[in-house]
């Protein structure tokens, strides 16, 4: 494990419901852009192929590995950077809301299926059954997805932290009502609170990249996604992406991960000392 600063791009991708080719074209562009800007790793949103809870998830989802993940792997290899991205995965007769972490050789080194699926998402996505972390040149990385970091689901983050994660990457589709405007604070403390709690408890860094765009189709029609992606460590917000609902953006942060001192049962002792476990 190399103890060094690394450069991550938070890619707030514009996603259009049920338009995987158009969405993946933008993925290719933003990968190239982030490589040109010297990123070591690029984080992309949840279900970036079809858009979160778009009805096409039921008919258009592809396996992983499959055509959409192949594009991401090829681009990772071509540009020599790590990419974490959310895709809609067809596995047998089930569809999962999945995230992959691809290394700079274009290999999928971690695949995670979302566990804390919202009620409105259950008609589209099955529940994931495992969590894992993987060692990378930047440190130990865990992956979860969007509402896995809800304040009442923080045990998912706890588990990744207990597995040694120094960094949690979280492809997301944070949604808001259609009538929000740029001067509003779109989420209040909804996301910052659990992110900061995890970061403080375990001295880790947690980063998301959220989609932008109007939600066309599905149970969340009438809502939209406005970015404002977040990178948080124990000291607070490292960087936040801009508010936008019609154009993608790339926000870059230079991150140095903290060493995780406690392992195994030491973590329980540490949590007791810190008066751990979030009060929900």
């Amino acid at each position, binding site marked *: 494990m190399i103890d060094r600063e690394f450069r991550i791009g938070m890619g707030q991708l*514009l996603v259009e419901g049920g338009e995987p080719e158009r969405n993946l074209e933008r993925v290719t562009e933003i990968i190239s852009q982030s490589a040109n800007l010297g990123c070591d790793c690029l984080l992309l949103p949840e279900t970036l192929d079809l858009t979160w809870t778009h009805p096409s998830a039921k008919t258009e989802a592809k396996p992983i590995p499959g055509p959409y993940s192949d594009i991401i792997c090829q681009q990772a290899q071509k540009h020599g950077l790590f990419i974490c991205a959310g895709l809609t995965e067809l596995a047998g007769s089930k569809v999962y809301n999945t995230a992959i972490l691809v290394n700079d050789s274009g290999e999928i080194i971690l695949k995670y299926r979302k566990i804390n699926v919202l009620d409105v998402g259950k008609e589209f996505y099955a529940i994931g059954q495992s969590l894992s972390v993987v060692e990378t040149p930047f440190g130990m990385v865990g992956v979860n997805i969007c509402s896995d970091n809800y304040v009442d689901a923080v045990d998912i983050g706890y588990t990744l932290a207990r597995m040694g994660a120094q960094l949690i990457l979280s492809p997301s589709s944070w949604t808001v009502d259609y*009538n929000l*405007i740029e*001067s509003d604070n779109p989420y209040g403390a909804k996301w910052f609170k659990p992110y900061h709690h995890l970061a403080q408890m375990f001295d880790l860094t947690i980063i998301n990249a959220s989609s932008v765009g*109007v939600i*066309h189709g599905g149970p969340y029609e009438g809502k939209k996604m406005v970015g404002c992606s977040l990178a948080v460590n124990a000291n607070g917000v490292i960087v936040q992406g801009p508010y936008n*609902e019609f154009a993608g953006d790339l926000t870059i942060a230079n991150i140095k991960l903290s060493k995780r001192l406690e392992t195994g049962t030491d973590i329980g002792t540490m949590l007791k000392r810190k008066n751990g476990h979030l009060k929900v």
Partner: protein
Amino acid sequence: MTNSPQICTRCTINATVPQARFDENGMCNYCALHDEMDKEFPLTAEGQNNIDKIITDIKTTGRSKKYDCIIGVSGGRDSTYTLYRAKQWGLRPLAVYFNDGFGNPVAGQNMKRATSKLGVEMRTITADWRESKCLKVACLKASTPDLNLSADLGIASALYGVAVAENLRYILIGQSFRTEGIAPLEWNYLDGKYLATIHKQFGAIPLRKWRPDDPGFNLNLIHMAYYVGWRRIRTITPLYYLQYVRSEVDEIITRELDWVKPGAHYGDDLYQSLLSYILRTKFKIDRRRYNDAALVRSGQMTRETALKELENVGEIEDPNVIDLCIKRLGLTQKELNEILDAPVKTFWDYPNLMSTLRRFSPVIKFFSKLDLIPKSSYKKYCEDHLVSPEYAASSRERADFQ
């Protein structure tokens, strides 16, 4: 052998265009209207003085405010250039984008880059997609060529709503009669009562109620009276006062703002692809007929080139984008076929405000002289250029009788 319809000797308007009439030299009434507008908005020192005076008024009125005006933006050429010029004039605009769910991502990037480079704040007014979709489908079912009526009206109401929210009195829009032309009424008609009627007949969900700062898709006469008469919000078309040459403007905004052409004219809105396809196949309308006519009149395109282009399907009719629009609206092939096969109608087939506008034309003329309403709107709706002589005579009789 069939006779070809008469074509204006100066532009591309032909006898298939509603209310097209030709003088003894073969020149059409649309050209006459263009010349009239040209005189009202001369590209001379007088025209420069007029726009200078407006700019001074905007600055004076907005002196104590965060912004002094609103500019409607879409990421297309016209609105991007309007924003660019406004900053050159020293204005402090708030850029307002109405997002009805069909924005072209290329145009979105243009807005982001332009506002960032010019240091202008953005305000995005997003339609409730359920309402937006419902109205688009209702307009398709109404079977008139006004397929984007809801978006056109939504843009206007969004601009008024933000003007109220920010207590501003000036709205600038990037429109130019010298490059866009003037659409025949039967091909492009807009009023709030008409949309409300279509929604009532074909809409699937209720619309949210009007609020001064959040009008949604409501812009009826009483709402207009509030914005224009009571709040005295003025709508200015700065490009009318400028030598506006598309090729030169493209070069400027590409160089200064990294602007990227979002496809064909109207390409800033993906829905225009489906709209153009339906206009051409169902209504036998090609909007380039009056768009390019304007470019010919203003010397930016030769008549021969324009007529030649009309022989081909427009570049905007991208089959992939047409499919995207159909999918996004949730239409089945059967529903689309029914829409395409339904008998052609016009706004005259639905209750609308036309006769009211004609009745109150002196008031509207007064408002247009104060720039409270664009002069082009007054000329289009209240003068006789684009209506049949019979309708013009009968509406005059009704006005005299009252």
